[in-house]
């Protein structure tokens, strides 16, 4: 088995992840847009509908603040809006997992030095995304139960030593993160059911605990830096606008006039694009790191680079 695969160092895992992300940047953008297009369309339609309703009846939305004065039609509309919001939330959850499924497949192809279009990445998406969703739900449920169980001794320790309790709390969270980091990509990469990958991921991570911990800690450091940048980028326009406008906050009309000037709009659009870019890189980098960790651990623990699993019969090794 030879596709240039070999066990990687932590730095190499990050470099490879960035490399694949950069190489498939356009494909990933297309994937994200096409997957989230339904939601975006719905949001736009809702916005247009809301504006149209507001123009025909300017006082309608104000009535929602006083439910006891609502007419039957307004109450129906309010209920409809609530159902719409809940439906939109669940749709976002589903689309997020479809997007994750496609992204994992693109990174999987990238690791093997293959190219994949966004359509090919979404092949088999109904079952794949469903398994991914179920695996995430199981992980979340198990994690929640574990969290509750862990909270009891931590509360007891807190009474004795708050600092020690915090240390134990963070330490346990880190350990749980390490053990669960591989579950979701394994569902997609090995086309397994939602349950088996969780235990398989735990076993693989346990055999390579320090390496997984190193990658997670370094990613956390990188994401903290980029998140700080995003926060600065949000604060920056406020500072620039207030400092340069000469318009007092107490004079909102003047301030609004300044805010709607072409220069400020261009600045805002540029900053929004920058924030989206950074967020996009951060999220997809993490998914890429997960895929590369799966490959690296399989190479180290199972010799995946030496022979394909079907030749060794190691398809269901735990």
């Amino acid at each position, binding site marked *: *088995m*030879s596709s*240039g695969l*070999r*066990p990687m160092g932590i*730095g*190499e*895992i*990050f*470099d*490879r*992840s*960035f*490399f694949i992300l*950069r190489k498939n940047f356009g494909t990933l953008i297309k994937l994200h847009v096409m997957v989230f297009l339904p939601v975006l369309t719905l949001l736009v339609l809702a916005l247009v509908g809301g504006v149209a309703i507001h123009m025909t009846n300017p006082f309608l939305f104000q009535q929602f603040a006083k439910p006891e004065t609502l007419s039957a039609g307004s109450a129906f509309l309010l209920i409809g809006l609530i159902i719409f919001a809940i439906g939109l939330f669940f749709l976002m959850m589903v689309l997020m997992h479809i997007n994750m499924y496609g992204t994992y497949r693109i990174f999987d192809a990238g690791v093997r*030095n293959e190219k994949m279009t966004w359509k090919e990445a979404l092949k088999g998406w109904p079952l794949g995304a469903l398994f991914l969703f179920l695996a995430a739900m199981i992980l979340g449920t198990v994690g929640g139960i574990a969290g509750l169980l862990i909270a009891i001794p931590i509360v007891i320790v807190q009474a004795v030593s708050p600092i020690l309790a915090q240390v134990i709390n963070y330490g346990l969270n880190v350990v749980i993160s390490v053990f669960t980091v591989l579950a979701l990509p394994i569902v997609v990469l090995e086309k397994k059911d939602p349950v088996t990958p969780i235990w398989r991921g735990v076993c693989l991570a346990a055999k390579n605990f320090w390496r997984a911990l190193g990658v997670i800690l*370094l990613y956390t*450091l*990188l994401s903290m*830096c*980029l998140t*700080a*940048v995003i926060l*600065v*980028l949000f604060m*920056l326009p406020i500072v620039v606008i207030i400092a340069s406008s000469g318009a007092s906050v107490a004079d909102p009309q003047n301030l609004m006039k300044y805010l709607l000037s072409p220069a400020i709009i261009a600045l805002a659009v540029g900053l929004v694009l*920058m924030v989206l*870019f*950074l967020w996009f*890189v951060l999220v997809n980098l993490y998914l890429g790191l997960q895929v590369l960790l799966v490959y690296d651990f399989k190479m*180290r*623990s*199972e*010799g995946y*680079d*030496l*022979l394909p699993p079907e*030749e*060794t*019969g*190691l398809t269901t*090794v735990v």
Partner: protein
Amino acid sequence: MNSQFVIRTPENVRIRYDLAGTGTRFFALVIDNCIQGLLLVAFSWPLVHGKIVDFNTLPEKLGMMDGLLLALIILFLMLITFGYFIIFESVWDGQTPGKKLLGLKVRRLGGQPVDFLAALIRNLLRIVDWLPSFFIAGFTTMFFNNMGRRIGDLAAGTMVIRERRRTPPAPISLTPEEHEDEIRSWLGGALPTLTEQELGPIREFLRRRNTFAPEIRQRLASGILRRVLACFHPGEPMPRHDGEQVLRVIYRWYQAESFGRLEESSVNDQVTQTPTER
């Protein structure tokens, strides 16, 4: 596989460089920033505790402070912030402590070591790479540039490469096997030519065999042997020899025939001679 940069010299020699990735460069920068921070603390600690500078009344005293001392403080701050990178990269073969730790090196695009001017330009332009904050301009440039070069690299004509290991991996030493002659005669008695694609998995397996669980180790050995046996003409299967033992015999055989020059090539063959075209 890392991206590579290939230079073809006038003598028709190809020199390949592995370009450093964004992640590794970021972590090298973190290490360097930590060292810079320690230097700053080391500098300011005696100033404060030696009562040379009282930061509570510093704003008032600035106007009265000895000009020379103020100049020295500013100079030292500049040395730590910019001079750290400029001096290390121009004196230490394109490496800072952070880069050295992670095996990175700055080189000019032609492969030559970076000189003082190039180091000065690429590091003074860190100010631009830093805009609007936290290296966003530099990160964005690196992300979209094919060679991962930031604005400072583009201006100075430099690149950051991954320094290959100077020492090759430890050779695999194997002791003579029991029944080695028996296995060799079972394999046909003659040593066929194995390509790197066939020999590579054997070498890697033998190097990493102790890291595998026993069951996996056994299955890998059997699988690799099954592939390799196609090149030999073995007799009937000999069940008392396990796959790993046969692989060890094969590898020792090759080591003996090749006078120990079987290990994967190290950094030193970075320069490869290409045949001239007629």
